């Protein structure tokens, strides 16, 4: 380590310093170590994953090429074999529930997991490949030689670490990417707050209530449960606990006068949710900020001697029917690691020399999905999706299935029209939003 103010860039401590041992950072470090580069993986928590929480499902396909047969060893809670989407109002709920037992067999689809377990497991993979994992150490700033990033400053005594490339996987707040000038000023409208309760319940009770067996589990995504604040809710099964939580738009939450745990208490008391969580004890409460706006809020991903990946690069995909993040973190982190390894080998870690990172992201799902779904976060947070859609959908169901004998049955078209009118939705607006949705998801 260097004590001087101008670090010796000719002989850096490591080829690459990766800041943050979450899924992005560990994937980057794993790729670098495998490519034979010296890599330091810095983590500010006492262990990888100790600062991390999420809204529930890890989609593992991205791991297939990194860790063959990862499912035989990854510390997962349950494999998701039931994926439900619930539209709710104060006392109604319409659920689309899909079950696939194929998802409960190798190679699986999605899993629930505790992030402290999962992230520590992935970091250990990087360590086993040769990365140097240093925990309980906060990166407090960048070391620079002119404009060029040449390492990080840490809060350890004599804690400067020099490197040819710094990969920022330091999460949604990414002070390092901001310090590097890769972000424009933050707009709170691009962010949401996630809050979650992990609720302990016996395994048999969960199996019965959610109609699953063995290590199969359920993920329910909920729309219409956040009052006037745009957002959504979720409920999913762990092995011996449930997780119930909310995602809330920051500016509206700040203005609404209701605290996050109050809105969460309302979801927990909803007639469709209360019986599922009844009798459970809160094992852990957690909160985290989410980069909600995806493609449109992404920073510059590459600078001179620096790359940004994972939540630090707003790689979280909040696209309504697809809610993913850990897989995008791993995908972007791995691409950053590969690009950095190549740049170090070619002795050009300038912005141009690291340009391979962008090409790799464009060539796989990470940027392709994000670009295609760039309008989705906004659509999901629109008044139509948030307020009108749940009410109209539940209202139509209520009218459709309420038997009104001796009155004859109303036609479906009449029911839909009356519900749209009741909720102030004009046909013109419904069509234009519908076309937008088709364009985005189609």
């Amino acid at each position: 380590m260097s004590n001087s103010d101008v670090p010796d860039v000719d002989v850096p401590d490591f080829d690459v310093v990766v800041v943050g041992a979450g899924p992005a950072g560990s994937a980057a470090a794993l790729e670098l170590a495998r490519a034979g580069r010296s890599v330091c993986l810095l983590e500010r928590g006492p262990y990888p994953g100790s600062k991390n929480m999420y809204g529930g499902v890890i989609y593992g396909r991205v791991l297939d090429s990194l860790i063959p047969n990862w499912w035989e060893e990854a510390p997962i809670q349950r494999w998701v074999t039931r994926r439900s989407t619930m539209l709710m109002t104060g006392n109604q709920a319409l659920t689309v529930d899909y079950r696939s037992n194929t998802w409960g067999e190798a190679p699986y689809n999605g899993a629930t997991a505790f992030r402290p377990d999962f992230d520590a497991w992935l970091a250990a993979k990087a360590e086993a490949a040769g990365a140097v994992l240093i925990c309980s150490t906060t990166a407090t700033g960048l070391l620079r030689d002119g404009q060029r990033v040449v390492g990080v400053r840490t809060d350890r005594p004599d804690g400067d670490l020099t490197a040819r490339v710094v990969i920022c996987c330091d999460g949604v707040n990414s002070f390092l990417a901001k310090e590097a000038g890769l972000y424009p000023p933050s707009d709170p409208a691009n962010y949401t707050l996630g809050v979650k309760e992990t609720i302990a319940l016996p395994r048999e009770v969960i199996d019965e209530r959610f109609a699953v067996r063995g290590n199969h589990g359920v993920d329910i995504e909920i729309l219409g449960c956040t009052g006037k604040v745009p957002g959504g809710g979720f409920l999913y099964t762990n092995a011996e606990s449930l997780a119930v939580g909310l995602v809330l738009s920051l500016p509206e939450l700040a203005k609404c006068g209701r605290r996050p745990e109050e809105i969460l208490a309302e979801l927990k008391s909803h007639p469709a949710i209360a019986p599922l969580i009844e009798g459970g004890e809160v094992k852990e409460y957690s909160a985290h900020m989410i980069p909600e706006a995806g493609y449109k809020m992404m920073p510059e991903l590459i600078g001179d001697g620096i790359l940004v990946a994972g939540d630090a690069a707003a790689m979280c995909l909040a696209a309504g029917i697809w809610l993913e993040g850990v897989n995008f973190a791993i995908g972007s982190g791995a691409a950053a690691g590969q690009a950095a390894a190549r740049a170090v080998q070619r002795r050009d870690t300038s912005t141009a020399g690291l340009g391979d990172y962008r090409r790799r992201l464009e060539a796989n799902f990470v940027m392709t999905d994000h670009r295609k779904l760039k309008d989705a976060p906004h659509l999901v947070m629109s008044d139509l999706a948030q307020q009108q859609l749940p009410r109209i959908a539940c209202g139509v169901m209520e009218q459709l299935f309420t038997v009104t004998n001796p009155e004859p049955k109303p036609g479906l078209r009449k029911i839909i029209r009356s519900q749209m009118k009741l909720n102030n939705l004009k046909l013109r607006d419904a069509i234009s939003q519908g076309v937008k949705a088709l364009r985005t998801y189609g």
Partner: protein
Amino acid sequence: MSTDAYPEISFESRMSSVEFRVSEQAHITVDGKKCADCSTRGCITACPANLFVPTADGGILFNYELCFECGTCYMVCNEEGAITWSYPEGGHGVVFHSS
């Protein structure tokens, strides 16, 4: 919706489910003068750990100790730079286990 049906836990027991390895050093500082002029005070509503509390004299009392380190407070802060926020020193702050 009524919240009577579910025996909601108190905020104190909610927070006691979380491990915090509290640092001696505060990672949040608040400029009370700016807060006194602030009309929106989004931090009071939005902070999931309820760390910002209005005082009788129009200021804001805050506590850094039981912080989730989410960043919501500085993000919703309307007064330029009233909240200065960084990560706690390494190894300290919130430690999740079952999230």
